[in-house]
């Protein structure tokens, strides 16, 4: 299963359309098949990231805030979108692999408080 996470620094980027970087990971049976790779987005734009998701043929996109039109576009292209996710991308990736991540999840480390999924 191939997953793409839009990131900024150590966290899932708050905005899909303003993500400077994406992380692409491939996993099977809760194990990474290869070292995740990150791609710096040439121009910050939702369309470019959507295009990248299609080119990379990912099955899941994990992101923060996303506009309805881009969400609909990705789901129309049979990509599962888990949006409104808040937290460090390392933990988010682990949750995706454990199949426990849901839209709107706020993970621990998203601020001063101890959050939960």
């Amino acid at each position, binding site marked *: 299963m191939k997953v793409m996470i839009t990131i900024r620094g150590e*966290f899932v980027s*708050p*905005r899909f359309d*303003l993500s400077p970087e994406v992380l692409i990971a491939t996993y099977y049976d809760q194990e990474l098949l290869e070292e995740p790779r990150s791609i710096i987005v040439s121009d910050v734009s939702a369309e470019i990231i959507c295009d990248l998701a299609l080119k990379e043929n990912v099955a899941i996109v994990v992101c923060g*805030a996303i506009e309805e039109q881009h969400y609909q576009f990705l789901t129309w292209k049979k990509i599962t979108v888990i*949006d409104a996710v*808040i937290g460090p991308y390392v933990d988010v990736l682990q949750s995706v692999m454990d199949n426990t991540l849901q839209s709107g999840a*706020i993970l621990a480390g*998203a601020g001063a*408080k101890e959050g939960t999924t």
Partner: protein
Amino acid sequence: MKPESLLHVSPVFSELLNAIPHGIAFLDTNLCIVVMNRFLEVMTGYGNAEARGVYSEFILRSNLGNKNQMCREVLESGESVSKDGNIINRQRKKIPVHFTLSCLHDEQGQAAGFIIVLEDMSVLKSVESKHQGLAQETGILGHSPQMAKVFELMSVLARTDAAVLITGETGTGKDMIAEALHESSQRARQPFIKVNCGALPEALLESELFGHVKGAFTGAVTETVGMFRLAHKGTIFLTEIGDLSLPLQVKLLSVLDDQEFFPVGGSKKVKVDVRIIAATHCSLRQEVQQGHFREDLFYRLNVLHLHMPPLREREGDIRLLLDHFLRQFSGKLGRGITSFTRKAMDVLSHYHYPGNVRELRNIAEYSANICQGKKVGTKDLPQYLFQSSEVSPRPAAISAPPLVSAREEVQPMTKMAGGWTAIEKEMMVDALRKTGGNRSKAADLLGWGRTTLWRKLKKYEMA
């Protein structure tokens, strides 16, 4: 005084915050949310319980860039900083916002936190776009006597605070009417919350409407306020009210009567001040007779009733709307299309528009995209317009008796050769066949929303 301590000063403080018609958040020095007012909760879609302690940029989701930039400016200048930008809320809607960030100081004059004010600029932006002659997206157009009656009734309904029931076929603009009623009512500056009762299963809908307490059911890890509390002092719009289950109808009735309810799993009653606007495409009276809808709730909702006439009954509006939408799409696409040719207009004015204004809008968009010249001809119109008129002479039968209400018109049709149901089934099968079974494309072709097609497929057991 630290922002955290403000919470304990007095209950009046939170009342005061909630009374301000702008989104307000207090941040600590780490730029984490300490408290938000109700307006900001509605604007962002996050409740205080889940947002507290989380970095503000993850909750506000603005386009102002890195969290530190604006705060550094405030700390350096010692003055408030204002900027225009936007946020994307949890409902995936982009809202234009005017941000104002100010620093809070303690007794020693040290920075103790920040206060951020978010002013919703969507109304102003839409007014600006209207002035520029751009898409009048929020406007309701119509010069027909039927629409004149609707506008007349709307001005009366906007002045009252009673529940309103809007009925009408799919695509007639029930949602727009509800929003317009809210915008012209005294609650205009308060939230307008739309809930589609047909889109969620019963258990989820109850929690969505009335909220739940922490631990109410498996997976309820945080408290949710629910749409009714989010719409406090504003308006809640319940669309597809006919799809509401009977147990929820009882709960809704009690809210309408007492303006209070228990959240799911809660033991404390919550009082709300909400105006209810409900809409449905089906005949609620018929649903009552069949035992699918409670009679008492029907009479409670039916205080003020507004029926949206189908487009085929609105004399003269087809041309007006076609011109409007063509101008709008032509402007958006940067084309110089001026009008329809006489032949094309003949075809369009004799079509029966089962998808009403939504379908007409789609036809105009299609034409604006396809047309290469200055005038839209018959070759630039969607092909199904010609096919449906060749296959069945029913459009003429439908558009023939003007000034007759929709209900009176549909009944005789049902007696003829399978009636409207059969026609609708046939149209759906045709559309699905043409699009190779693709429901989204079939819905577009019919001029319906995808959900409408899905609902109708289910209704006729074709899914």
